[in-house]
């Protein structure tokens, strides 16, 4: 930008502050700007470190590392396939179960619940998000596991056993336990973002719907969902990011088994779960590198998911919906 063209510095076009230097402003701008810069530097720095440290694994096994099935710490042969699939399956089901519940809660809180109930219920839902994941994992192991094993999984097996997903023999730890725990984790995230979106829907739209004599359901379907849809989709993807990356709780309840199993009752494992379990016990440098390799894959997936959410929001903003 050239100093010869004074208009170039003013992008607001309108009022311009005096040219007198204000130290307070400068300091404030520097501090906030630096904070913003730091987050950018941090994400790049983390990505750089993860990929640098994961490089030996990719160098040794090639990019086949991603699709390779064996994970053998004794023979030093590593591949990410089973954990990648486990991560995708557990997160997929957590979202499929969690998103409708979360959106239903948010709709209830903004559209249907009596006013005196809205605050307390919203608070309770957000309290779920504050449960430390290690505590939730313990609950999954000690309380949920036996219930799944003795009641829910046998029932699913007896009534829906023709679906291969429910075909195995019941077990306390396994994919289903992890899915339920992850569902509990994503619900408050999606609920609270969705609720904020719904609250911001202009009153005139609701009034209009009311004036047309629409029912609650018709208002939700015709006004609320189209208006908040992209935001809800983005909220769901943020929830997905949480599910993809959860390590400790998953490691406690998923049963850490390799292989791809159709039955949801069977023990499985995820990228984050495997890292949490083996990082501190790694016997060889290559095992450590490969665990970081799992982290690199996970990082790429979660970054893609979050980018996806931002693209959705951006496109919606451009259309003027948000």
């Amino acid at each position, binding site marked *: 930008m050239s100093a010869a063209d004074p208009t170039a510095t003013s992008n607001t076009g309108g009022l311009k502050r005096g040219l007198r*230097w204000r130290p307070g402003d400068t300091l404030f701008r520097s501090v906030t700007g630096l904070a913003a810069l730091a987050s950018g530097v941090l994400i790049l720095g983390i990505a750089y470190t993860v990929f640098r440290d994961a490089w030996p694994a990719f160098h040794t096994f090639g990019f086949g590392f991603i699709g390779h099935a064996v994970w053998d710490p004794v023979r030093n042969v590593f591949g990410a396939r089973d954990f990648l699939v486990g991560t995708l399956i557990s997160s997929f089901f957590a979202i499929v179960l969690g998103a409708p519940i979360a959106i239903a809660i948010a709709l209830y809180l903004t559209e249907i619940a009596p006013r005196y109930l809205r605050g307390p219920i919203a608070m309770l839902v957000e309290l779920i998000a504050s449960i430390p994941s290690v505590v939730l994992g313990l609950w999954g192991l000690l309380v949920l596991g036996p219930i799944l*094993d003795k009641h829910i999984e046998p029932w699913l097996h007896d009534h829906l056993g023709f679906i291969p997903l429910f075909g195995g023999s019941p077990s306390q730890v396994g994919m289903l336990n992890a899915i339920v725990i992850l569902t509990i984790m994503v619900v408050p995230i999606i609920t609270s973002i969705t609720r904020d979106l719904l609250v911001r829907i202009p009153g005139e739209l609701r009034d209009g719907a009311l004036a047309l004599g629409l029912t609650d359901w018709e208002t939700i379907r015709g006004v609320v969902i189209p208006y908040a849809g992209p935001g809800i989709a983005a909220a769901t993807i943020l929830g997905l990011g949480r599910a993809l990356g959860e390590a400790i709780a998953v490691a406690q309840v998923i049963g*850490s088994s390799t292989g791809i199993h159709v039955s949801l009752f069977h023990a499985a494992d995820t990228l984050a779960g495997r890292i949490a379990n083996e990082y501190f*016990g790694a*016997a060889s*440098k290559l095992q450590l590198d490969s665990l970081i390799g799992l982290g690199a894959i996970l990082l790429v997936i979660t970054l893609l998911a979050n980018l996806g959410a931002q693209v959705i929001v951006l496109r919606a903003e451009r259309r003027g919906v948000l």
Partner: protein
Amino acid sequence: MDTNHFVGRRIALAMVALAAVLFAVFAGVASAKNAKGSDDRLSGAGATFVFPLVSTWIPAYQQATGTQVAYASVGSGAGIAQITARTVDFGASDAPLSPDQAAACNGCLQIPWALSATAVTYHVSGLNKQLKLIGPVVASIYLGKITKWNDPAIKKLNPGLNLPDKSITVVHRSDGSGTTYNFVDYLSSVSPEWSSKVGRGVSVNWPTGEGGKGNAGVANIVLSTDGTIGYNEISYALANKINVAALQNKAGMFTTPGIRAITAAASTVKRVPASNEMHIVNPPASQKSAYPISSFTYIIIPKKTGKAATLRKFVFWALTEGQKPQYTQKLLFVPIPKPVLVAAEKTLKQVGS
């Protein structure tokens, strides 16, 4: 001109702020490095296996010498990681250092400083007697080749036992663990198939079964699921009242892990290699009552350390005074045998500053 001046100022301020942040970070790192404390304190981290024993040592040792020892039971792998980074004065591990770990640790010594056993645990409701197993059958179960509790191979070992027609749920550790090392060390020595297909390590490629995190994770699954088989440190299994299987040793006797049986296994040690890496699983038949999954656990210390004298004194105390029954017996640890003690003391002499 004004703009440039403004931008320049802004950049300068930003640089100052950045420098301040970096300074704060590095100062933090530096102070953490120096925070090891004075010479009358020792900090250690590692195996959960020896934690109960070390906890009984700490007050006694402080009373005797005035030295404060802090021990964090974070697991063998984390212990090795911490001593490798020198954030503690000593590490502790149930598995001997792997070649990679030894190289990374850069001049570390491993000294066997305690001795106990790993129990094969099970939960089959309604059994009228204790379950008896032999190594190859345990290996077959963990290879996924024996899948029912009333399999002929198990029935043959347990005449008169009402074994049910029930699937066996195999439980193993999901985290890298010294207990796993001891268990698969045993399976490798009794089953050629295990040795060639799976092998030994702190974490292995399990052919079957579900993983529990930590001793507690495995114990919890075994205790609450009918039809399970697992493995735990013996003191942990006893404290949680889990059924322990009797295992046949080379002499043909079925033994359960107890002081006498572990002592017998340890007394088969005649020679100690320079690395101090000891394997006493599946011991020779000369000891009739030996329990076959007994193992040493190690303290890992750097050869060069600023606290050489303090550290040598503590380890020597642990190897001698610390082995007395008042500390070890209740926890089912066994005093380390003479040849190991001699080798340990010799190794300890290498520690200097």
